[in-house]
C-alpha cells in the first residue's frame, strides 16, 4: 500500500475520532448531573461482564450457514481443480472432465439438420458452452452440464447459486439463466482489520474461488449449429 493510499485510508478514522471526541464531551456533561454511587457502578460492571460472557456461550449455540474452510491449501486445491477442468473444456478433452462436476446430462434425437442454441434470462450468458464434433451419422446430440467449485469465505456458493435450466426441443437447446439473486452474509472477525489490512487483502483472495456453469455438447459434424448469442467457447 502506498503512502498516499495510507493517508486517504486514515482520513475517515480522523473524522471518526473527532465524532468520538464530541460524544465523550457530551457524555461528560451529561454524567456530571447524574450521581453515580459506587454500588451502582459496581453492579453495572458485573452486569456488563456477565453479558459479555453470556454472549460468548450463546454464540456457540447459534447455527451457522456455511462451513469455514480454514486451510488456504483447500482453496488452492479447489482452484487447481477448476483450472484443470477449464483447460480440458477449452481443449475439447471431454474424457478429462472430472465427473464430480457433472450436474445433469441429456440426449436428444434432432428432427432436422439444424441445432439452434438460445440463451435467455440474462444480458450476458451465464454459461460457457463448447461443442465436440463427432463423426456419427446419426441425429443424436448429447448435452452435459457441469458446475465447478465456487467458495467464498467458507460458503459453498455452489449450493447457493441457482442453476441455469436447460430445455431441449426438437432442434433447439434453450438455456435459461437463473433469476437475479442477492445474498448477504455476516462474517465476524476477532482481528483488528486496521492492523492487518495488507495481509487481509491477500487472505481474501486466497479465500475466494469462483466456478462457472459449463455446457458441453457432442454434435455430429453434419449438423448445422446456429449460435446467435455467441455462447460457444472458441
Amino acid at each position, binding site marked *: 500500500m502506498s503512502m498516499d493510499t*495510507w493517508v486517504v485510508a486514515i482520513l475517515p478514522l480522523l473524522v471518526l475520532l473527532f465524532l468520538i471526541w464530541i460524544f465523550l464531551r457530551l457524555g461528560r456533561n451529561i454524567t456530571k448531573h447524574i450521581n453515580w454511587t459506587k454500588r451502582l457502578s459496581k453492579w453495572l460492571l458485573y452486569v456488563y461482564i456477565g453479558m459479555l460472557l453470556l454472549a460468548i456461550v450463546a454464540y456457540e449455540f447459534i447455527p451457522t450457514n456455511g462451513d469455514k474452510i480454514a486451510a488456504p491449501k483447500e482453496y488452492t486445491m479447489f482452484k487447481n481443480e477448476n483450472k484443470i477442468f477449464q483447460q480440458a473444456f477449452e481443449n475439447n478433452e471431454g474424457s478429462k472432465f472430472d465427473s464430480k462436476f457433472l450436474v445433469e446430462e441429456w440426449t436428444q434425437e434432432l428432427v432436422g439438420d439444424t441445432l439452434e442454441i438460445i440463451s435467455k434470462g440474462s444480458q450476458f450468458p451465464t454459461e460457457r458452452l463448447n461443442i465436440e464434433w463427432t463423426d456419427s451419422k446419426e441425429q443424436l446430440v448429447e448435452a452435459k452440464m457441469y458446475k465447478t467449485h465456487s467458495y467464498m469465505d467458507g460458503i459453498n456458493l455452489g449450493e447457493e447459486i441457482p442453476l441455469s435450466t436447460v430445455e431441449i426441443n426438437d432442434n433447439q437447446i434453450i438455456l435459461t439463466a437463473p433469476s437475479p439473486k442477492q445474498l448477504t452474509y455476516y*462474517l*465476524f472477525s476477532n482481528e483488528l482489520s486496521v492492523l492487518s489490512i495488507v495481509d487481509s487483502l491477500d487472505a481474501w483472495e486466497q479465500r475466494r474461488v469462483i466456478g462457472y456453469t459449463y455446457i458441453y455438447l457432442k454434435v455430429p459434424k453434419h449438423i448445422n449449429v446456429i449460435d446467435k448469442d455467441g455462447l460457444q467457447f472458441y
Partner: protein
Amino acid sequence: MMFLSNSTLGEVVWTQLKFKMNAYLGAVVSLIFVQIIGLIVSMNGNSSTGSGVDNTSFTIITISSDVVFAFVGIWAVFVGKLFTTKAYRYDDFSFVATRLSSNLANFSVLCLMSIFAGVTTFLSNYILRVVLLLVSDVDYVKSVSIFEDPIGTIVNLSIMIILILTISAGGYLWGMLVQIHKAFTYLLILLIITLLVTKTGQTILQYVFIENESIVFLIVKLIALSLVFFLLAILCSNRLEVRR
C-alpha cells in the same frame, strides 16, 4: 530522622493503587458506555466484500471490533490525560507518597484499566455477533470463535491490551506536558497531523504499525513505546510545582 513506621516504595504504590482503583471506578463505567456507543455504530459492519457469478451477487459484511476499539482508544487518551489533572494529582496528597510512587501507581492503574478495556473490547464483538444474528435475518458464515482458535484469541487480545496501554500512556504524557504548559494541548494535535501528512511521519507510523515481520515485533515495539511515554511523563512530572 526516625519514624514509627517505614514503608517501602512497593507498599506505598500498592496503597495508592488500591485507593485509585476504587476512586476511578467512574472511568471504567464510562468505558462501558463508550463501548456500547461503539457497538451501536459497528452494527452496519466495518467492511464488505462482494462478488457475482451466474446472476447471483454476494456480499459478505465483515464485523470486527475496529470501531469499538477506535472509541476505546479515544477513551484511553482522555483517561491517561485525566490522571494528570490537578484534582486527581491532589488525591495523592492524602498519602505519604513521592512523585515516583504516584507515577508508578498511575502506571499500574492504567495497565489494569488497559487489560480490562482490551478484554471487554475483544469480547464486545460477541455481543454484536449474538445481537445481529438474533435481530437480523442475514445469514452468517461460520467465523472463528474463542474456543476454536485460543492462540489467535490470546494474540489478538494481547495486541488490543498493549495498544490501549500505549494510547493511554500517550495520553498520560500529553496530560503531563499540558500541566507544564497549556500550549501542549494544541501541539499534540499538530504533532498527530504532522505525523500523518509528512513523509517522515508516515515512515515512522509505517515502521511501528505496519512493517512488522511478526506480531511479536509489533508487541515489543508497542511495549517499548509505552515505557518511553511513561518515562518521559515521570521526567515531566518532576518539573511540576508542588501543591500550594
